[in-house]
């Protein structure tokens, strides 16, 4: 049989592919077993993560050193730029009057309105931020956490416009010079990306609770699974009256405040 030039080329290309396949990354990846979590059984999993902020306990702590804010910002390399305009924040103090407009009456509520409690990303069930993100850099995970993938963020700030809670910050400058100390285990961000609280998804993968929850020595922050009927958060929400930020928007926040 006569071998045509075209056939010969085809054979040689196939042969070359076969030779390289064995050593290629493709082969290495194909043989890898599917992987799930950092250490099997160690990661914290949930149907829907949520946080309960006990305002009574929080406000009773008169000499609170803002351990939650400090722990979070140190863990995640959140810079202190020293001015409101460039401010980057994951969790911060906000007056209840600003957090719950229209929900506090002018009697007992007026007193509460002046006091400040922690605010953070609400990890909404219907997050407006993920709907507007053109690159899917921000998205909602199956367990309800709204995460940021800074690799994909193009800095358009649509999410910041969409978020009704001001939970997102933009890096107008390189944040590194404004960090007192860098936690090398967590990346810093770069100029031109948006960032926010991630409910410590990286700590949950290691089986640890969020940094703010672990840091609060007053027990004012409680973290748990809303889908688990026996979880502490569900118990707390059954036993106490709670409010959420701007419920009229239908975003269904996963951060509950006990009144």
């Amino acid at each position, binding site marked *: 049989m006569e071998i045509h030039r075209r056939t010969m080329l085809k054979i040689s290309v196939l042969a070359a592919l076969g030779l390289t396949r064995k050593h290629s990354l493709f082969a290495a990846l194909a043989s890898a077993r599917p992987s799930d979590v950092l250490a099997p059984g160690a990661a914290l999993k949930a149907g829907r993560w949520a946080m309960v902020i006990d305002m009574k306990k929080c406000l009773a702590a008169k000499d609170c050193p803002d351990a939650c804010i400090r722990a979070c910002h140190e863990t995640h390399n959140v810079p202190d730029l020293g001015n409101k305009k460039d401010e980057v924040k994951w969790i911060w103090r906000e007056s209840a009057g600003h957090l719950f407009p229209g929900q506090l009456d002018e009697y007992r509520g007026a007193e509460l309105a002046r006091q400040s409690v922690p605010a953070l990303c609400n990890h909404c069930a219907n997050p407006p931020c993920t709907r507007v993100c053109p690159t899917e850099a921000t998205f909602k995970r199956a367990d309800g956490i709204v995460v940021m993938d800074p690799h994909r963020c193009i800095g358009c700030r649509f999410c910041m416009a969409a978020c009704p809670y001001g939970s997102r910050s933009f890096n107008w400058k390189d944040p590194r010079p404004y960090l007192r100390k860098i936690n*090398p285990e967590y990346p810093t961000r770069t100029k031109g990306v948006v960032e926010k609280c991630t409910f410590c998804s990286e700590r949950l993968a290691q089986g640890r609770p969020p940094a703010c929850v672990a840091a609060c020595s007053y027990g004012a922050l409680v973290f748990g699974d809303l889908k688990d009927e026996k979880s502490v958060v569900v118990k707390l929400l059954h036993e106490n009256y709670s409010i959420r930020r701007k419920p009229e928007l239908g975003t269904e926040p996963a951060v509950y405040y006990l009144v």
Partner: protein
Amino acid sequence: MKLYHSRYILPALASFLVMATLPVWRGAAARGPGFQSPPNPQGQRCIEPKGVMRAGHMRLLMRWRDEAVREDRRLYIASDGRAWEKSLVKTCLACHRPAGAQGKSTTAATACNECHEYVNVRPDCWNCHYDSATASVKTMAGNAMAHAAASREEP
């Protein structure tokens, strides 16, 4: 077969060959850093075979990035069955860190950059992922400067 005018043709051909391959000779003569394997002072076996890593480390890293950040799957089982956390800083840099602080290239990031410069690519991993060895010094200095600048700006 007879070559006419070989007196002219052969020297011209020879000089053409030299001229045409001149960049190669000049490159060989220049003493650049050239290709360097990433530092591995403890001599540990890399997660995948050398050839695979050399050709496809970026593909592997990008796969890690997507799986860890987007799918929350953070454990990589290598082709030889060993398990690794999908982390550039915690896993890769644990080994690929130059021993001692000789010269300027004390960080793993700069060690990576030596080869990246040679092949003229500029990955921006280190804008965010943090390599502690020398950058911390820079940061503290930068921090002091930034605070000084901020206090100067304020009225």
